[in-house]
């Protein structure tokens, strides 16, 4: 079974190789299309390797390949390598798959870019694939952290892909700074953990946890810090503010990084290190609470967005909250399952949205309308994604979402359970709001001015873009159907009313959206007024972005300004005072040199006298 490890290794290293080639061979990168194809082919190979590896696994088997990375006197501080087991390989497949599809899709989406620019894009993509896979199969915290940071870097680079646009530039650094803040805590957590246990290795830590030794007692702070890292990356409240802004990046990037893979890394981390978190139930509870709250909060926010990508972004935040809630409830596998399904359908949604944006050249749903007729394929796949997300039976999200609700209930998190239910309702509502406004209805009149790219002239994307859509849609359907048929065993017994409840709130959400936006039975404005207390807050994003801006401007930059001033005018000032005083002292002292001979005699007489005094004379 050694092949499993090596297959995984190759799946991981192949994109790295592609990245190196693209980064180092400048003409290749500048050539655009060839660079893209290189990257795509490599990621296809990577996908195949991952699938092959997964196919040859057996349950409860983990394969490790390690190389020494940082040596110390008596051995190895940390190593790098591969930890291939069923979970990581499944995740690996997801990453490889979405990555491959997105790369294919991008070829069409970014067809207007210059070759050099396109080459740059695929370089980043390769790097991302490499980093993300490294994260997935990381055997220890250090490698995980390394890749964790690298995917953050890729996110930064890809959000800022259109760097001349000020919004893109701002969003890129914002994303980086906020996730990095979480990472800082993550690092602290790792450091503390190492000091306690002397290892970074998951397997060794797992053994420690199983043996229940003293070594793992009182890990609360450690796991909490690790969780903060995950919260930053997985956009948990209050770190979620970066994710909607990250939509400034190209849409395929959003699909890959900010929906399917990178943002789920936090969830994956918690899933992966669940054995540690189990030691600290308090932290787990906090994870659950925050997750549920995030889910609800983001769902509210999604309801008032008019930017299609932002709706999807908040929905991602919301879904991440679900996953976290499941883990917090003590059922990490459930969260992981939702991670996988969400990865598929959210990528689908984003790519479909991308196709729309590509066609109509705007993100504003109110500027769209009636696209179902002009872009039927896109409409279908978008609808599939939406139904999945809403948790309608026979679609991918149904089973996993229901399980999360059940997990929350079973985990005793009653209030979070309530929040999740409300969020589920809102999810169905806001998604159908988008579907109805953008795809059904009438084309927006204002769009006439958009010329060839207006909704009126929109048409389905070329094959290279629709093919990935269809693949993902099929997959979402397949997963949904497969789960519905097989109904796999779960660890907990969900209450019987759960399925009706889940389906019920979803349908209710859809119905409300239908009533409001399609039938206009209920005025949208009235509805908004009714919920003004929360609606306005949601429009203002609960002032969280303002809060972060305040912290940045007033606190960080403010303190920086103060420190900079102090450094220049006080610390350095004192030094200058010393030197200026020395100069002045010289100036003053030379005044004793009056030029008059008698004063010089004074010097002699005084000198003799002082000499006598100095020698303690008379003794």
């Amino acid at each position: 079974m050694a092949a499993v490890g090596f297959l995984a290794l190759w799946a991981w290293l192949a994109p790295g190789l592609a990245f190196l080639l693209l980064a180092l061979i400048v003409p290749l990168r500048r050539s655009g299309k060839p660079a893209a194809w290189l990257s795509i082919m490599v990621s296809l190979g990577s996908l195949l390797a991952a699938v092959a590896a997964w196919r040859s696994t057996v349950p409860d088997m983990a394969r490790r390949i390690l190389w020494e990375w940082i040596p110390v006197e008596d051995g190895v501080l940390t190593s790098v390598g591969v930890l291939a087991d069923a979970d990581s390989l499944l995740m690996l497949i997801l990453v490889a798959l979405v990555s491959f599809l997105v790369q294919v899709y991008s070829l069409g989406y970014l067809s207007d870019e210059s070759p050099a620019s396109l080459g740059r894009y695929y370089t980043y993509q390769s790097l991302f694939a490499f980093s993300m896979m490294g994260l997935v199969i990381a055997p220890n915290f250090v490698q995980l952290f390394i890749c964790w940071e690298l995917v953050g870097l890729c996110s930064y680079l890809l959000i800022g892909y259109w760097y001349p646009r000020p919004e893109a530039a701002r969003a890129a650094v914002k994303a980086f700074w906020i996730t990095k803040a979480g990472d800082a805590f993550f690092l602290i957590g790792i450091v503390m953990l190492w000091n306690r246990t002397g290892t970074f290795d998951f397997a060794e830590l797992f053994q420690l946890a199983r043996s229940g030794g003293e070594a793992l007692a009182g890990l609360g702070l450690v796991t909490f810090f690790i969780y903060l890292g995950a919260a930053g990356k997985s956009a948990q409240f209050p770190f979620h503010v970066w994710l909607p802004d990250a939509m400034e990046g190209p849409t395929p990037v959003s699909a890959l990084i900010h929906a399917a893979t990178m943002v789920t890394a936090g969830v994956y981390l918690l899933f992966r290190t669940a054995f540690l978190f189990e030691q600290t139930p308090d932290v787990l509870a906090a994870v659950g609470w925050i997750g549920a709250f995030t889910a609800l909060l983001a769902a509210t926010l999604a309801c008032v967005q008019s930017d299609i990508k932002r709706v999807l972004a908040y929905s991602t935040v919301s879904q991440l909250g679900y996953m976290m809630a499941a883990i917090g409830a003590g059922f990490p596998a459930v969260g992981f399952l939702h991670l996988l399904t969400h990865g598929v359908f959210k990528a689908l949604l984003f790519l479909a949205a991308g196709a729309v944006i590509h066609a109509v050249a705007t993100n504003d749903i109110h500027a769209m309308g009636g696209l179902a007729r002009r872009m039927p394929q896109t409409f279908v796949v978008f609808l599939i994604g939406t139904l999945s997300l809403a948790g309608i039976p026979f679609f991918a999200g149904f089973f996993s979402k229901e399980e999360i609700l059940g997990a929350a209930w079973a985990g005793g998190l009653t209030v979070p359970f309530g929040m999740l239910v409300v969020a589920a309702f809102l999810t169905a509502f806001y998604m159908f709001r988008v579907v109805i406004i953008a795809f059904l209805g009438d084309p927006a009149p204002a769009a006439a001015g958009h010329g060839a790219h207006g909704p009126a002239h929109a048409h389905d994307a070329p094959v290279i873009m629709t093919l990935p859509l269809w693949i993902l849609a099929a997959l979402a359907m397949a997963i949904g159907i497969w789960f519905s048929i097989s109904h796999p065993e779960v660890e907990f017994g969900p209450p019987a009313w759960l399925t009706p409840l889940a389906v019920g709130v979803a349908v209710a959400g859809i119905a409300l959206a239908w009533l409001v936006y399609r039938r206009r039975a209920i005025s949208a404005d009235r509805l908004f007024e009714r919920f003004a207390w929360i609606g306005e807050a949601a429009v203002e994003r609960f002032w969280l972005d303002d809060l972060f801006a305040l912290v940045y401007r007033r606190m960080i930059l403010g303190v920086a300004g103060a420190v900079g001033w102090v450094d220049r005018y006080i610390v350095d000032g004192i030094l200058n005072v010393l030197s200026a005083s020395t100069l002045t002292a010289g100036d003053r002292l030379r005044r004793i040199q009056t030029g008059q001979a008698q004063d010089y005699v004074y010097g002699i007489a005084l000198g003799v006298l002082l000499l006598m005094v100095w020698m303690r004379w008379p003794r």
Partner: protein
Amino acid sequence: MSLESITFWGLAAVLVASSLAVVLTRNLFHSVLYLAMSLTATAGVFLSLDAEFLAAIQLLLYAGGVVTIVVFAIVVTERLVGDRITQTSRQILTGLILSGALLVALLVVFRRGPLTVPRPAMIGDLTRAIGESLLTSYVLPFELLGVLLLVALVGALYFARPDD
């Protein structure tokens, strides 16, 4: 009170008084005259210390020579300036404090010094002894003194010559 002490105190009084006059008189010419008086009194002090030869040198070289050159210098400079040289003093107070402090310091040292040595009897002819040692053990300084006087003379001449 012995004759010796009366002589000493008398000389001391004259010496100090004339010295003070040297540094306090406004008229420079009078200063010089007081200096001559002071130097003469010093010669008296030398006599009281049985140093007749030195007293003689003192009178000849100092009271005679120095005072003469100084007077000469005054005359020359007065001619150059064109009016009588009166002189004032500067910073009298600080000068007084500083020299007073030095005096106090010296006197304090004297108080604790082993200075109560008895005055030994005279050892033969002092003048002869001085002469002998000048030409034996101190012949080198004596020769150098000659060079010194020569070079001082050359220097004084260099400045005093009005030409080139």
